[in-house]
């Protein structure tokens, strides 16, 4: 009996074993390789990120963020005027925020938009070089904003400013005081003190949380600047116009019997006035009544047309905080409490539980300045590969249609009136128009002072919102800051 036949079969089986291994190795190194490389458990993910330089982030031809070799072939990240641009650039030290996070793939070269372009590099396993990013930020205006916010804000308190190109949505300024300097914790990946510093900043000091910027990521009561939104709702929901007669006399709140005061008696805010005058002189009672007439649900619905109630996506994975006009809130016992009549009246003047980011109020002003249309806000204009080919380009798109063109035109006129004849006559000659806001934040806490508007006055191109915390009102606390910033933007 011969053994050749079974031998041959075993030989084929042995070959199949080897083929099985070949197939598996192909599967792992071919199909699965990408998943394995990006597996969260893979320590190379963390070790390698400092081994190659990330792309630069620049604005207006000025390099703001760059990678430099520190030694041992490791690259650290360096931030020019780190604290000034922190609300936009964010930081990168393994973890990342803001633009550093939104475009981490492009900056590090891992993104398929770069790799696909260089399919040959991918094929031979060469890692693609990171792309450079160009921001829409106006560097000089941003520096001005930072300095002026610092001066205008009470010690230990916060301030924020946003300027937005109304036709494109490009952000020109997004400044915060206080801010954090990423050079203190993101320069050197091997520095053990970095982590400590980051933790320290994260805990913050009182209400100041340096890692949370006050332009995009923090909300404040908008106060009277909210009346821009209320006026738009009044026009569309209640059919009002500038000449509609408003009751500006004392408002006795229906539930508690307390009175809702005006900032001043007399003038338009005496007994009755046209809506335009009530707006210019910022009569609280007329807007409180408007809110009661609309009901809080309608105000909440109306706010959604401007972006309230949702996190506005500035860039992929880079969101602004959610601004809110709550119809209910949780009390200290964790029970849900509906916003009552009194609270509705107060919500109508941007108090109670109404909160907004400076970005959100700038978007409200943008709706006015841009004939009712809000564009999607963004900060990254372009991504350029190292060979200067464009791998990303901002594509301005409409975010929401908040009001009609006529309503916008009318509101533009009112906002000009605020400066020429209303609550902000001190701002004349600054080529800005807008609405003041002064929100009380409780006993012993400084006011949130706002000035929200547009510029130039005659042909609105930019919308802005400036907020500083301190004593007094918006006209003096925020208006001059806005004027200084806009002078720089328009230069």
């Amino acid at each position, binding site marked *: *009996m*011969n*053994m*050749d*036949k*079974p*031998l*041959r*079969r*075993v*030989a084929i*089986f*042995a*070959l199949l*074993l*080897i083929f*099985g*291994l*070949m197939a*598996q*190795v*192909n599967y*792992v*190194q*071919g199909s*699965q*390789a*990408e*998943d*394995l*490389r990006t*597996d969260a*458990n*893979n*320590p*190379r993910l963390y*070790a390698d990120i400092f081994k190659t330089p990330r792309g630069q982030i620049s604005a207006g031809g000025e390099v703001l963020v760059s990678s430099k070799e520190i030694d041992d072939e490791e690259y650290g990240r360096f931030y020019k005027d780190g604290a000034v641009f922190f609300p936009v650039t964010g930081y990168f030290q393994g973890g990342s925020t803001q633009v550093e996070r939104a475009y981490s793939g492009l900056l590090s070269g891992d993104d398929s938009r770069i790799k696909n372009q260089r399919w040959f590099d991918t*094929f*031979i*396993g060469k890692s693609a070089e990171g792309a450079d990013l160009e921001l829409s930020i106006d560097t000089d205006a941003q520096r001005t904003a930072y300095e002026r916010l610092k001066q205008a804000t009470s010690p230990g308190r916060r301030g924020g400013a946003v300027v937005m190109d109304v036709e494109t949505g490009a952000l020109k300024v997004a400044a915060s005081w206080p801010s954090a300097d990423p050079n203190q914790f993101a320069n050197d990946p091997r520095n053990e003190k970095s982590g400590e510093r980051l933790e320290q900043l994260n805990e913050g000091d009182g209400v100041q949380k340096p890692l949370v910027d006050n332009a995009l990521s923090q909300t404040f009561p908008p106060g009277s600047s909210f009346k821009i939104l209320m006026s738009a709702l009044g026009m569309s929901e209640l059919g009002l116009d500038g000449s509609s007669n408003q009751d500006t006399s004392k408002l006795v709140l229906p539930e508690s019997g307390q009175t809702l005061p005006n900032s001043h008696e007399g003038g338009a805010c005496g007994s009755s006035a046209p809506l335009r005058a009530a707006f210019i002189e910022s009569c609280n009672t007329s807007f409180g009544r408007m809110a009661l007439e609309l009901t809080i649900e309608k105000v909440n619905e109306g706010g959604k047309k401007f972006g309230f109630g949702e996190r506005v996506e500035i860039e992929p994975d880079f969101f602004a905080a959610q601004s809110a006009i709550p119809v209910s809130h949780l009390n200290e016992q964790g029970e849900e409490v509906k916003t009552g009549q009194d609270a509705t009246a107060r919500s109508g003047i941007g108090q109670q539980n109404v909160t907004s980011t400076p970005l959100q109020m700038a978007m409200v002003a943008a709706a006015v300045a841009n004939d009712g249309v809000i564009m999607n806000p963004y900060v990254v204009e372009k991504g350029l590969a190292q060979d200067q080919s464009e791998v990303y380009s901002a594509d301005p798109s409409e975010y929401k249609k908040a009001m009609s063109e006529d309503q916008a035109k009318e509101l533009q006129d009112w906002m000009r009136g605020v400066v020429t004849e209303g609550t902000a006559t001190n701002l004349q000659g600054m080529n800005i128009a807008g609405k003041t806001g002064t929100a009380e934040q409780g006993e012993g806490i400084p006011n949130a002072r706002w000035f929200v508007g547009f510029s130039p006055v005659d042909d609105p191109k930019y919308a802005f919102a400036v907020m500083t915390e301190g004593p007094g009102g918006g006209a003096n606390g925020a208006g001059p800051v806005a004027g200084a910033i806009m002078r720089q933007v328009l230069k």
Partner: protein
Amino acid sequence: MSSLGEQIRARLPYQRRNAASLVLLVFAMVLTLSAFAEVGLARDGSIPAGMFGYGGGLVVLAVSAYFVQMKFAPYADPVLLPLAVALNGIGFATIYRLDLDTSADWKQAALNGRTLEDAANAADQLMWTFVGIGMFVAALLIMRDTDKSDAPLSFTPKTAQRYTYLIGLGAIIMLLLPVVPGLGNTVNGARVWIQIPGVGGLQPAEFAKLMMVAFFAGYLVNKRQAMSLIGKKFGPLSLPRLRDLGPVLVIWFFCLGVLFIQKDLGTALLFFGLFVSMLYIATQRLSWIMIGLGLLAVGVFVAMQLPFMGHVDQRISIWQNPTAYFDGGCLLDSGEVVPVNPNTEIYEKFAAQGSQFPGTAACAELGGAFSDSRQLMMGLFSLGEGGVLGTGLGQGEPWRTPLAFSDFIFTSIGEELGLTGLMALLLMYGLIVQRGMKTALAARDSYLKLFAGGVSFVLALQVFVIVGGVTKLIPLTGLTTPFLSQGGSSMMANWILIAILVRMSHDARKPAPQAIQDEGMTQIVSTR
């Protein structure tokens, strides 16, 4: 019609192919030296000193082996030696490369008065390569050409048939050595090492592997007629007699014993697979494969049920879901896996008590079995990093994987040489196996056929078990990767394996002795 073996023999060249062998050998050496050079160029930008010391050493050894083969086995298959040299060289260069990264850790540990086992050591590997190729030479010299039976040491592969049971006993003793107290040594959970003073650790199972092949071949050649012909027909299968089944059960039981006592799943699997395949070659009866697979299933089932053998159960669980075990996972009785890693509370609780194995203690508290898939995952990450073409020798980070130079050397090579390099390695293994199988087909004797077939198959199976394990094709079990892994026993045993194949291929391929009719009454009788 003539048998396949006769057909193959009819087509064999019956001529010396030493020139071809030399060309291939030079190619293998160029490959090795280039690998050393690339390591140096990638790391320091210059040709490394190691290329002359280590690479040169390997070249001298390989050339010596070649001359011995040319002199004493001139008709041998020309491909076997160059393939083994190439595999050995690539493994060696990889160990040299890993040594550069891990020797610092090793020295630091030595400074602290500890010994660190987990470090690559190129100097030792050169020594083991020397011993391995020395074994190859010695084996070729001892196993004489069947034509020269008057040589001083008259021992051919065929001689082993006479000592079948003695060799079988030897294999069992070898396998059981690590269990002997004072001699054995548990490394990484498996008791497969023996400690020999002055020599270091040895894995006797590597040698037992070859002795087992010789024993199975001898035993089956005697019994195969009975085992293949006699039996009851039962449907499509014909079942063997109980007295033929007996020895099979003994082997199965023995393999289970290896598994239980030494916790060495890989070796048990290797021996059992080898036995079943040789049984099939000898008898050509499918029923033996069925019985073999059935017994294997029963064995695995039994192992999974026994509480103190949580091992097998866990390995299968890790294989199915390695991510859950990363940095430590605890397999509960319910089959659920909970993480028990340094970030978990239960781990911290036991770490705070100063427990040496907080993970194990924490898991015991939960009533489960602790295991860690870090090594497997890191190996897979290595492969992922390598991709199609690899990072290039010296430019990856294969040292991140524990035991990157022994059990996981395949993934280390995969990271730096990529899919391309691994396919080349697998092709080399495949070629050795198929050349071995061809030798078996061409052999002129049943015993030699079985012997060569078994030797070739055991190599294929070993590569499959370890490479399949580290690439997550099958559950991971510890075995050495032939010629690549760092270590002495594996190197020696596999070089002897190659020597056996070289010797047998020489015997199979040399021209049949000519009867010299001219000299009157004298007639040479073949001694095959």
